[in-house]
């Protein structure tokens, strides 16, 4: 990989982390409403995966979507403004934290019903196949989503119709507060693909370069041979959402995983490679701080959606 691209990846992961840390503060201050699901700890999965896509490849994910949005190229401004419900947000303040999207970046959302976006991914991929495009659809979901009917309907259909979908399970070990072993008949999620005769792999989701390599290989397969399931082993450092009492896991376990911080690991790798020194990386950190501060200022100063947007938009086509 080019040194420039490595630095860009580092910048992106730090940006995701800092945007979310600021979002948590703004949530505590009551400036962000609804639910807020933080991606902190899982950055290597989103950044590694999305960095392997071609521009024509679509990305769709679940409600823990801030990191994926940024990895797809969404600006911190656009994310922050949506979190604050402003007209300048990516979804014009209509969606909130769980419903970020920017179709111009080929990022098809943030979807909040567990498992429900897997059929949507099948449909996005079907549209590309229908048109004869070589685009693939990358669909991310949590381990919890693999126990719901949608997962099985969507994976089965993707194989039957040979749809270009890269299914990516972000196995962060818990569906809300229920450990994988307590909810899933098999603890290796990738095994579920076997039931559909679908090739699959497991990757260390804390290592951004390993994820990127796995994604490149998987996408090559998808473009040529149809669907593939990639399971990325990861961990969320924060609760399921803000206000999670975290009775289901011990602080020792969380600390142990935090030692494997994906950003810390990547920083070490970069320093060992020697193309970037600590000063260069610190410089990126500072640039990120400024970017996040700018995003918060922008979001806070942005207008709310106009009241009239509430009405008159039920349908696109004029009635009568």
């Amino acid at each position, binding site marked *: 990989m080019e040194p420039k691209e490595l630095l860009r990846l580092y910048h992106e992961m730090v940006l995701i982390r800092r945007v979310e840390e600021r979002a948590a503060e703004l949530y505590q201050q009551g400036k962000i409403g609804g639910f807020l699901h933080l991606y902190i700890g899982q950055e290597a999965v989103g950044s590694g995966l999305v960095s392997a896509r071609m521009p024509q490849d*679509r990305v769709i994910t679940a409600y823990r979507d801030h990191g994926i949005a940024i990895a797809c190229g969404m600006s911190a401004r656009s994310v922050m403004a949506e979190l604050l419900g402003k007209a300048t*947000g*990516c*979804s*014009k*303040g*209509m*969606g909130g934290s769980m*419903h970020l*999207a*920017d*179709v111009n970046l080929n990022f*098809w*959302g943030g979807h909040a*019903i567990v498992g*429900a976006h*897997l*059929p*949507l*991914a*099948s*449909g*996005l*991929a*079907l*549209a*590309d196949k*229908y048109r004869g495009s070589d685009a693939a659809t990358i669909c991310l979901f949590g381990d919890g989503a693999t126990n719901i*009917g*949608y997962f099985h*309907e*969507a994976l*089965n*259909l993707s194989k*039957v*119709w040979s749809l270009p979908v890269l299914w990516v399970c972000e196995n962060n070990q818990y569906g809300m507060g229920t450990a994988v072993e307590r909810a899933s008949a098999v603890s290796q999620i990738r095994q579920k693909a076997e039931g559909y005769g679908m090739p699959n792999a497991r990757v260390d989701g804390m290592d951004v370069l390993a994820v990127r390599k796995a994604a490149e290989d998987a996408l090559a397969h998808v473009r040529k041979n149809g669907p593939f399931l990639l399971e990325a082993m990861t961990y969320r450092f924060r609760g399921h959402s803000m206000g999670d009492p975290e009775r289901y896991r011990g602080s020792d376990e969380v600390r142990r995983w935090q030692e494997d911080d994906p950003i810390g690991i990547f920083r070490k790798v970069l320093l060992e490679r020697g193309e970037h020194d600590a000063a260069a990386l610190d410089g990126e950190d500072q640039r990120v701080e400024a970017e996040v501060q700018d995003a918060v200022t922008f979001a806070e100063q942005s207008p709310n959606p106009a009241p009239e947007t509430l009405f008159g*938009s*039920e*349908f*696109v*086509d004029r*009635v*009568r």
Partner: protein
Amino acid sequence: MAIITMREAISQALWEEMERDERVFILGEEVGVWGGTYAVTKGFYDRFGPERVRDTPIAEGVIVGAANGAAMAGLKPVAELMTINFAFMAMDQIVNHSAKLRSMFGGQFTVPIVIRAVSGGGRQLGATHSQTPDVIFAHFPGLKVIAPGTPQDAKGLLKSAIRGEDPVMFIEHATLYQARGEVAEGEVLEPIGVSKVQRPGRDVTIVTYSKMLQTSLQAAERLAQDGIEAEVIDLRTLRPLDMDPVIESFKKTNRAVIAEEGWRSYGIGAEVAARIYEAALDYVDAPVQRVAQKEVPLPYNRELEQMALPQVDDVVKAVREVL
């Protein structure tokens, strides 16, 4: 004018729109090789091929879900649900996705999906296969709900639905496929969200749609023999609901009966009656009457099933109540 069946009308609409627009494709259970369980898509597989007439697994969640995704990406899917009772398996996709995706993402894309579903009782299929739950789908903002009662409307409204950019639930009544009616020659397009006077009259307003339109027209014929002229208004579209012709008629007749095949509680009748009272209270000469299905899961036994379903007699009786 040609006289054709409802089945032919729906089939023609699909065929013409597929010929017209390459983005239009069909997916569903047995729509292809089988030719459609109600034979609506007979011959389509041979003409349009397996890419555009897609047989799916029996998995309604992903049928509607994949159609939603394809619609987001700019295609125009027509998803067929073998019966509306199976739509409950896809309820999340219909109400949480078809109806909401566009507005929830600030209008970045449209979801031009048409979901065809077969509704209605009267064929001794037992409680789970005989429901007329049309009104449920009309509860959700963002989803258009169309339920035609004539071949002309079936053809014209389905073509409009496919051409539009909004998600549409298109409800066909299982016992209407053989119903015959006049359909205009050439391009047939009917406006969505416009109720229609199907029979003019001066004495009483009957508001209805779908199968009960036919029932209501028969009731009106019988009433006419006694010199009672009923005006029959066909809602055609349950959402958006066009009350204008209903209110106009009611201000003339001062009496109304609402006839639907679904259950009375929280039904179309309740909604239409409330709107009549809201808009024309000063014109009310008698309490609005509702004709609907008895409040039971439909039984298998033919006599009992017919007893539970609203009949011509029930409409006639309700009209005599308001006169």
